[in-house]
């Protein structure tokens, strides 16, 4: 499956978090790498799965279903947002 970048889900993330998240830094729970959310690898199917570009750990999953959005941030130890 061909991936895209965190950029590609910028609109969805902003809908969920109320601000741009792609310029925020996220730390991977698997390998500890820290990089911008805009640069993580994104796979789209029924939902969105984002993985660490370095170690492939699942960082987050988002599913939109009808009037619900379901967010799983299992692989992000920290998120650093700057104003």
């Amino acid at each position, binding site marked *: 499956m061909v991936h895209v970048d965190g950029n590609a889900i910028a609109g969805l993330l902003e*809908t969920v978090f109320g601000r*741009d998240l792609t310029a925020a830094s996220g730390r991977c729970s698997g390998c500890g790498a820290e990089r911008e*959310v805009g640069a993580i690898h994104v796979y789209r199917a029924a939902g969105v799965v984002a993985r660490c570009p370095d170690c492939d750990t699942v960082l987050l999953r988002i599913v939109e279903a009808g009037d619900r959005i379901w967010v799983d941030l299992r692989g992000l130890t920290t998120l650093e947002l700057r104003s």
Partner: protein
Amino acid sequence: MSTAVLGPGRLAWQVAEVTDTVTETPRVRTLVLDVPDWPGHRAGQHVDVRLTAEDGYQAERSYSLAASPEEPPAVTVERLDDGEVSPYLVDEVVTGDRFELRGPIGGYFVWDAAGAAAPLFLVAGGSGVVPLMSMLRHRAAAGSTVPARMLYSSRTLEDVIYRDELEQLNSRTEGVQVVHTLTRVQPPGWTGRAGRVNRELLQEVAFPPEANPIVYVCGPTSFVEAVAEALVGLGHPPGRIRTERFGGA
């Protein structure tokens, strides 16, 4: 639907009206838009477009903004023959038509002229040129003097988007250099490059790593992967390379 759960955030769907269209190539068209209360955008940002069929089926796609922040918003769209949204935007839409849009979106794949000092190196594959064109237009409109180079890979000369404008930038704008490579067919007398973007071509065209350039790469996923890998191999730090992958093709 989503906004009903989470409340109307800043990023809400709104209706955009097409105020002008520009045919760029046989497969690519630019739509100039009027969006009420457009907050302004940054070069490199995109919008999400949503079309709703009569039976309620919705299709949503992202399109990069082609205009500089100094201009009204415009998107440049390439027709994907099996696409759900692009054939409508490229072939059907006429001036005065409206569709749903949200944006501007994204804070990562962006370039601001204000305060920019590092050389700007842009690598485009096909319609990946769109957000990079916004950056070059922004550089010109903002009066920036940072050195800028674009390496742009197209299949054929006919597929080159913004060809005349890029030629003007290349020949008349100080500090801007545009290098084309054609991967499939080169017309007689072609003086540009031929073949895919590879390590040798990048080494020749890119600013050297010692110049500490900021690099933006946009195109199909396989193109972006190959270019980013080659740039890292040439000594460019991964943190100085920003990528935007389109997916397949």
